[in-house]
C-alpha cells in the first residue's frame, strides 16, 4: 500500500483528504505544520507528499527545499495544494521542482487522478 503524507494546517482538510485517500486505497500520514511535515517525511518515507503552501512554522516552499537537501527524502514526489491561484505562485512551485500544483477547492476526481498518474510513473 502506497503511503501519502498530507500536509495542511486545516484539520478539516486533513480529515476529508484522509478519508478520501483511504477509500481510494492509500495509507495516509498527516502533518499540520512545516516542521512536522519534514520530521514525518524523514521517519516514514512516504511515496508522495501533498504539500500546502501557507503553513505555520515553515511554509511549503521551505519544507520542499528542506526535503530536497536530505537524500532520503529528496526523491519523494511533491504535489502542492494551495488556495493561491496566481500564476506567480504556480510558477514558483513548479520551478522549484513540484510534480504538480492543485488549487483549492480541490476536486476529488482530479486529485486522485493526479496522484495515480504520478505514482504509476515511478
Amino acid at each position: 500500500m502506497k503511503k501519502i503524507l498530507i500536509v495542511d494546517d486545516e484539520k478539516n482538510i486533513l480529515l476529508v483528504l484522509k478519508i478520501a485517500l483511504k477509500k481510494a486505497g492509500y495509507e495516509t500520514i498527516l502533518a499540520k505544520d512545516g516542521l512536522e511535515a519534514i520530521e514525518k517525511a524523514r521517519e516514514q518515507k512516504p511515496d508522495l507528499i501533498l504539500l500546502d503552501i501557507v503553513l505555520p512554522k515553515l511554509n511549503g516552499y521551505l519544507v520542499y527545499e528542506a526535503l530536497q537537501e536530505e537524500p532520503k527524502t529528496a526523491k519523494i514526489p511533491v504535489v502542492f495544494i494551495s488556495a493561491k491561484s496566481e500564476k506567480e505562485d504556480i510558477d514558483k512551485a513548479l520551478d522549484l521542482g513540484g510534480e504538480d500544483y492543485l488549487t483549492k477547492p480541490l476536486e476529488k476526481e482530479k486529485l486522485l487522478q493526479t496522484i495515480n498518474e504520478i505514482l504509476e510513473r515511478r
Partner: protein
Amino acid sequence: MFKNIKSLKSKIFFGYLLIIFILFIVTMWSIINFTNLSDSITNIMVENYNSIKACESMIESIERQDSAILIILNGQINKGKNTFLKNEKDFYKWLSRAEDNITIEGEDAVIKKIDNNYLKFLNHFDTFQNLETTSNKRKYYNSNIFSLFHEIKNKIRELRKLNQNQMLKAQKKANLRADHATVSTIIISIVAIVIALFFSFYLSKQILKPIEKLKKAVTEVSNKNFQYKITMRTSNEIGELTKQFNNMIERLQEYEKINVEKLVDEKNKSEAIVNNINNPLMVLDNDNQVILLNHNAKKLFNIINYEKNKHFLELINYEDLFSKIQKSKEKKNMSNNSVKLEINNKEKHFKVNTNNILNESNEVKYLVVTLEDITKLKKIDNMKSEFVSTVSHEFRTPLTSMNMGLELILKEEVGEINDEQKELIEAALEDTERLKELVDDLLDLSKIESGKIKMNFDKFNVKNLIEKTTNPFEKQLKEKDLDLKIDEINDNIYAYADPSKISWVISNLIGNALRYTDSGYIKISAEKKGYRIYFYVEDTGKGIPEEYQDKIFDKFVRADNTEEVKGTGLGLAIVKEIVSAHNGKIWVDSKEGEGSKFIFHIPSFKKDNNKEI
C-alpha cells in the same frame, strides 16, 4: 501773439489782415521807390535841361547879335542895331536863368566868365558903333569882336557840355536808383512772403494744435482710456468743443466706473466661488496658457507667484496630466481619465474632469479642468480588492472540505444514505459548487479591477476566434433546442486585443443568452467600423427592462424579471472590465419579451498598433 485773440474766426480774420498789411507795405515800398525814381528823373529835367536850354538860347542870341553887326556892316544900321538890342535882352534873360540853375561845380565860374566876356562884347559893340567908317568898323570887328564872339560861344558850349555831362551822371544815378529799387523791392517782397508764410503756418498750427490734441484724445477714448483729459486754455470754438469733450469723458468715466464696479463685483464673486471649490481648478485657453488657477490648484502644484498667460507646462510640470487634458480637448474617447501624479514625494491619484467652452464657431476657446483627488478612493478600492482576494482565498479551503466531504457521503463511500439524505446532500453540493464559482469570479474581478491581470495584446482573426469560442456551446444549444447563427463575417478582419479575454467575453455573453432564452435563436456577428471591431450577441430571450439596461453591468445586479437566480451575478461586471481594459465600450439594446442585443467594440489591428496601448 495770438493767445490774446480768442475766437478761431478772429484768428483767421487777423491772419488775412496781416497778409493784407504786408501786401500794403510792399506796395507802399514800391510806390516810394517809383516816386524817388521819377523825382530824380525830374531833377535832371528841371536842373540840367533848363541850363542846356539857356545855353542854346544864349548861343542863338549871341549869333543873332553877330549877324546884327554884320547887318550893320552892310549898311542897314538901324535894323542891325534893333536886332542887336533885342537879342541882348534875350541873352541876359537866358544868362540869368542859367545863373539861377547853378547846380554843378565849376558852372558858376564859367557863367561869370561868360558874363564878363559878354560885358566886354557889349563894350566893344559900343566902340564899334562909334567908329565912322565902314572900313574902320570892319577892321575893328575883325580884330576885336569876332574873336570875343567865338570865345563867348565856346564858353557857353563849355557850360552846355558841363550840363550835358551832369545829365549823363544823373541818368546813371537814376539807373542805379532804379536797380536799387528793384533789388530792395524784391528783398522786401521776399521778406513779406516769408513773414506771410510764417504767419500762415503759425496760424494754421495754432488752429490745428487743439484739433490734433482733440484727435489724440478721441483716439485714446475710443481705446477705452477714459482717464484721458485734454488740458487746453483756449476759449475759442475748439475750447468749447474740448470742454464738451471733457464732459463727455467724465460721463463715460462715471458710466465705466459703475460698469467696472459691477464687473469687479461679479469677478470677485466668481473668484470667491472658484477659490472655494475644493477641487483644484484651472482654466486654459486654446494655446494651453493658464488663465486661471484656483486656490487649491496653486496649493497642489506649489505655485507661489502665479503669472497669468503662461503655458501649462511652464507652470505645472506634469506631462501625464497635460497629455490627458489634451486628449480630452480633442474629445478622444477616454475610458480612463485618472492620472497618477507624484506630488511632494507622495503618490496621488486624480480624476481629470474637463469642460470645453466653445466660441461662436464651435472651436474650443477655454478649457476648464478640475482635478478630483481620488487617492483615498483608489486606496479604498485597492483595499477592497485585497479584501475580496483574501476573503476568496479564505473561502477556498473550507470549500474543499465541504465539497469533498459531501461528495464522499453522496457517493456512499463512507456508508449508505437514504433518498432524502441524498437529496439534501445533492442540494448542498450544488450550492457548494455555486459558491466555488462565485469565489472564482470574485477573484477574477478583483484581479482585473486592481489591474493585476495584464492584457496580452495580439493580432487575431475575428472570424476564427468567434468560431472557436462558439464550438463548446453546441451541445448546450441542442439540449435547449436553440439555433446558433453566426453571421457572415469577413475573413480578413483582425482585432488587436487579448484573444483569450475576448473569447471569455463572448462565451460569457453566449452563456447569458443561453440562460435567459427558451426558444428562438442566438445570433453572433462582427464587423469593422473605422478602427474598431464591433461584436454583436443577440438573443430572442425574455429581454431586459429598460431601467436595468445600464445597471446590469454592475456587480450582483439582476433584472427583476429573472425568477430564478442563475450564475454568480458577476459575469457582466467582468465582461465590462475586460472591454474597458481594451479601451472599448459595451452596452445592450433590449426590449422586454423580444430579446437582447449585446454590443461591444475593441480596437482593430493597425500597422502601428503596437504603440497604441
